[in-house]
């Protein structure tokens, strides 16, 4: 039986992870799990720790372990600490030795994509056999490459065998937010359902819900969702970044939020991008000048 399927032991911890409830994953009582599920549960817990910024602990824990799964998680932990080259090297080795390992695929895909090597990430991930984590990653990579068509195809295929599982819904919603129109609303439903039920709620789903609302033009609702997310997790960069965007959209002054984002995530794409664009502006503006300067 697929341990991630609805009947399996791992479904709850797995869902927690993908709902962004990382602390719940770490705290999850896995003592009752059968032996075969112990490793996947451990991997999930490590991934959650990495997401919580405790990569050091993970590296310490997987040190010396021979399982490719743990090695892959270790690579992700290294990557998250900024040791890009080492991480990529580990992943490349694992990809050639244990490319059929689901965890290696997912971790490897994540590291490679994050390192900007999308094609390799896709190549590694495409070896998956019925792994929804991989599907979700592939979908995301396609979306980052602006290949909505391929992402859509990926999700449709997964929908046929993955049934209504959380990851399929999430991936479909990611695509939905990109496609827009009616799909904004559909995606909103998915995120909102997660965000509003106490058992599944997380800042991640709140932020996602808010993003949909922002796209739908429902700024007040988006604002309250984001503020709630920030209230729950004051340093949550995505919530701050999106609230910042929202503040600009409604024509308000975003200075405070920019400072907050700078503090929470100095290398957030919003900030790096903005810096880049600011330089671009100056460069482009320099091309023009009045005939007569006053």
């Amino acid at each position, binding site marked *: 039986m697929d341990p991630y399927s*609805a*009947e399996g032991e791992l479904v*709850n911890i797995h869902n927690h992870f993908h709902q*962004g409830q990382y602390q719940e994953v770490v705290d999850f009582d896995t003592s009752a799990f059968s032996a075969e599920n112990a490793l996947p549960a451990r991997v999930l817990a490590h991934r*959650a720790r990495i*997401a919580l910024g405790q990569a050091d602990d993970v590296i310490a824990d997987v040190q010396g372990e021979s399982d490719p799964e743990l090695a892959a998680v270790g690579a*992700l932990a290294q*990557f*998250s600490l900024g040791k890009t080259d080492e991480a990529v090297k580990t992943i490349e080795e694992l990809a050639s030795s244990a490319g059929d390992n689901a965890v290696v695929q997912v971790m490897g895909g*994540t*590291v490679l*994509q994050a390192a900007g090597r999308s*094609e390799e990430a896709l190549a590694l991930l495409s070896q998956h056999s019925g792994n929804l984590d991989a599907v979700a*990653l592939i979908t*995301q990579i396609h*979306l*980052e490459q*602006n*290949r*909505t*068509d391929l992402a859509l195809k990926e999700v449709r295929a997964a*929908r046929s065998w993955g*049934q*209504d*599982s*959380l990851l399929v819904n999430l991936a479909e919603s*990611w695509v939905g937010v990109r496609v*827009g*129109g009616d799909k904004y609303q*559909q995606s909103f*439903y998915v995120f909102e*359902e997660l965000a509003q*039920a106490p058992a599944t709620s997380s800042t991640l789903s709140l932020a*996602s819900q808010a*993003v949909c609302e922002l*796209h739908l*033009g429902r700024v007040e609702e988006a604002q309250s969702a984001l503020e709630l997310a920030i209230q729950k997790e004051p340093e949550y960069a*995505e919530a701050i*970044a*999106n609230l*910042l*965007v929202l503040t*600009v*959209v*409604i*024509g308000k002054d*975003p200075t405070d939020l920019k400072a907050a984002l700078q503090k929470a995530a100095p290398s957030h794409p*919003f900030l790096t991008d903005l810096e880049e*664009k600011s330089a*671009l*502006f100056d460069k*482009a*503006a320099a*091309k*023009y000048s*009045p*005939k*007569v*300067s*006053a």
Partner: protein
Amino acid sequence: MASSGMLTKFESKSSRAKGIAFHPKRPWILVSLHSSTIQLWDYRMGTLIDRFEEHDGPVRGIDFHKTQPLFVSAGDDYKIKVWSYQTRRCLFTLNGHLDYVRTVFFHHELPWIISCSDDQTIRIWNWQNRSLICTMTGHNHYVMCAQFHPKEDLVVSASLDQSVRVWDISGLRKKHSAPTSMSFEDQVARQNQQQTDMFGNTDAMVKFVLEGHDRGVNWVAFHPTAPHIVSAGDDRLVKLWRFSETKAWEVDTCRGHFQNATGCLFHPHQDLILSCGEDKTIRVWDSQKRTAVQSFKRENDRFWVIAAHPEINLFAAGHDNGVMVFKLERERPASTVHQNNLFFITKEKHVRSYDFQKNSESPTLLSLKRLGSAWVPPRTLSYNPAERSVLVTSPADGGSYELINLPRDGSGALEATDSKRGQGNSAIFVARNRFAVLNTASQTVDIKDLSNNTARSFKPPVGTTDIYFGGTGNLLIITPTAVHLYDIQQKKSIAELAVNGVKYVVWSNDGLHAALLSKHNVTIVTKTLEQVSTLHETIRIKSATWDDAGVLLYSTLNHIKYTLMNGDNGIVRTLDQTVYLVRVKGRNVYCLDRAAKPKVISIDPTEYRFKLSLVKRNYEEMLHIIKTSSLVGQSIISYLQKKGYPEIALQFVQDPATRFELAIECGNLDVAVEVAKELDRPALWKRVGDEALSHGNHQVVEMAYQKLKQFEKLSFLYLSTGDHSKLARMAKIAEHRGDFTARFQNALYLGEVEDRIQMFKEIDLYPLAYMTAKAHGLEEECQSILEVTGITEEQLTLPEFGAPLKQPQPVVPTYKANWPTKASSQSFFEKALAGQLEGLSLEEEPAAATNGFDELGDEDILTKKTAALEVEDDDDAAGWDLGDDIVPEADHDFVNVDSTEAGGAGSSEADLWARNSPLAADHVAGGSFESAMNLLNRQVGAVNFAPLKPRFLEIYQASKTYLPASAGLSPLVNYVRRTVDETDPRQVLPIIPRDLEHLASNDLQKGYDSMKSNKLEDGVQIFKGILRALLVNAVSAEGEVAEAKKLITSAAEYALAMSIEVTRRRLGTPDVVNASPDLTKRSLELSAYFTIPKIEVPHRQLALLNAMNLASRSKNLSSALSFANRMLANGGAPRLLENAKKVKAQAERNPHDAVEIEYDQFAEFEICAASYTPIYSGTPFEVCAFDGSKYHSKYKGTVCTICEVCEVGKKGSGLKFFA
């Protein structure tokens, strides 16, 4: 032919039932049995009310009288008996038939009974004078059935001679309704006339003989309204006949029974015929199409008779082993509530909605005519507000569902188009994009998306009969013995509660609780399926709805009741017809009746609200209820007493005895005393005394003892409280009463030795008197006693005396006040009632309305100003040349992203924006700043972009959101669109913050405020900001372009005007300026120019005032006069005008300018925005292509001072706002 749909409501077990009659009003049914018994059942409660056993042998005919408490029966003993069900006995017997009597019926208005018999006759009897009035002969075999027509003077009969006969009895009515002032002889004569009067007419004539049955006819019945007859015979056929004034004919035959058809009738309200037969079936036929609609079969019992309830949709059939009462279809209209709307399906299968707030019913939103079969109403309705679609299930065809979108504009009865359907017994929305379908036959639940594709499916717990919404992500799954809370995601039951036979689930408004309704039970559960309470009803429970406060109101067949969470319940009101509750709001209960009509029933929610606030200990609310409503009654009192709130119950009781009991119970002595005084009974006073004693309230104790005349106790009380004066009085009283013991006692308490001695003497107890005197050393007294008694001291032997008794002295004057009484049992509530609590105000605080006024005033002015501005601006916008479109270079060939199949990255939406739009703003949002600048350069000659940087970055920052996706990867970037509904990548466009509307309602107002508050430097920046925001902007409709241009012009004028004045102020302080003639001149000029730009009139007035004051101060009275005149012409605030008038009067005396300035008040000119000098009409000038500000020609090629972006004199294609 479906066998479903028939709903059995009651079944009895007995010997063969041959006759049935419904009571027209009460839920009663009479059953006559082959065993000679007549039973009276309450089919609603399922109880046997009575048995009547006087017939000898089978009883075949039975009928209730419509209005009187009578019924009639007839049987094989040839007898017809008339009974009173009140006195429960047979009133009299009509004898006359010579063989078995088959049927008896009352006439609907005349005091007649019709009977038919195996003696081949039909007889009509008058039950008032207990006589036979007519015998109808003609049938030549047993007459099996004879009935009056429900309205006309007709009789129909069926006989084993294979014929059905229709008789005209109008003659009989004439004869018997004639004035009854007949002599005895006349009556006798009439009796003897038998059937033929003197003209040879008979009282009852055969009108038609209907032949068509091949065998004997067992039953015949008239249609309630139409001229139709239905008959059933041993030829197994049910025949439909029609008749007119003159003839009658057979219409059609319903074939289907495969044994003798024994009974038949028309459905009272629908075009249906029901028949039953010895083939053990009941069959339902469509009387229009004469096709079988339904059939119902019993395993072993042959049916003998069938009857319809005259009013409601209920039928009964008698068979070999008893009777069954049933209805053909569910009468519960399918409905669902969403917020303030009720959606329901009418009897015509139309979907309608009803607005609770407006109390109005919508026109038909949708027609479901084609759903299921004609005679099967839809079972459930589920509404999805997000998609405005409905999910309807119907039991037809083994269960089916249909998903239909409601038309957006509910106009006219639309046939459902574009519906998605499938097989299933229950279907409900579980999320806004998912619904669940239960198929009971295959025992599967499918979760489907809105395109009807199965997203997942699972096997529910064994024996699942129904599913309901179970909260987000959950289903409530109903099995015959339990309810499961089922997690759809995990595909497992996460909670289970054993409840039998749940039929409906009703969620509370806050979604925290649900009521599970079964036939006789209401179980309240939490959303996690934990049982909160349960209650049992003997009457069937029909529906329920939650009050906002968490009270469940439910309806039974004949009551609306309530239950609180804790299971306390009671009756709210009675119902005269069954309704289905859908909503309760205040004093109104909204419901649907069986005709699917929304109704509002008013209720008195006081009782349950009171109980609820009691449970919640919300005393203010209780107090409010007590004060505002007349809540009395034994039930409330006993409820309160039972719940341990005697002090509250006390507030409702009028009856003094009960009041006293309650007062004692809650220790409320005041009330107890009050009642005791009123009733003044010793028993009560005793209890008051005891209670008061235990409280330490000795004053009340004293009163009680006084009332009870318990002198000893009183004395002791006074002793213990140290009240000597009262003790003395007690002594006096004792003396009066002649009670020596009491007197002695009091004297003892008081230490009155003399008094005691005196008393002993009085009662001749000299030895004791002497002893007392001696002991207290009263020697004189001793002597006098000795003298009186004539004994000397020597004759006495005295014991040793101790110290004399010392009188107890009170330490504390307790009697002056009560002891500290027992801890007060006065609740908050009582205090509030007694008015002791201050600040507990029942009325809501009046809203603070003091400081709102000023602001309101300001706003008012503001709006007025805006209005004024808009009026003025109308004139200005006309002259603006829009120019020709120049297709921007950025409009490259479009690359269709979707078609590229191979790998590799596609272009982002940001890139598309640049391709899709000729607007600089859209290019900025897409991040292509170069092309945006290029566009602006071409359109309006923008050259100096630095001031636009904040605007560029603002737009750019608003363009993207960050959707957190997989852990470990950067968030997914998505692009925010202003075209929210658009999905075609060639049409999508970015959102532009601070659009026209935002600028007009925010920034512009801020600009005006700065003008008003004289913060001109801020104002200049605000208006320049508006210009820059407009320079890079987009509008959503062609029509807004003009508005945008208008706003540009206005902002430019303000920026210019304010800049002029700012420049003037920068010339120096007034002293500096006045000191220098040049500066004075410039200052006066600039102040004059300040009045030139076309700004809003109130603001221009400010400029004019400024100029006028400066001019008049500098003795430039001519200029001042012109400004004053302009001000007066503009009108406006009286204070300003007053000022202007003064200056005008002053200036007119000497209209000369002291300082010559370059300002010709009569010439037309505009102001150069760079030099702030006049550009007189006729002289050449240059303009800024964006904001329209004017410059002397020499400034051509410089950067516009107003927008600070564009090059003066550079021609452009014109700014574009609309893609």
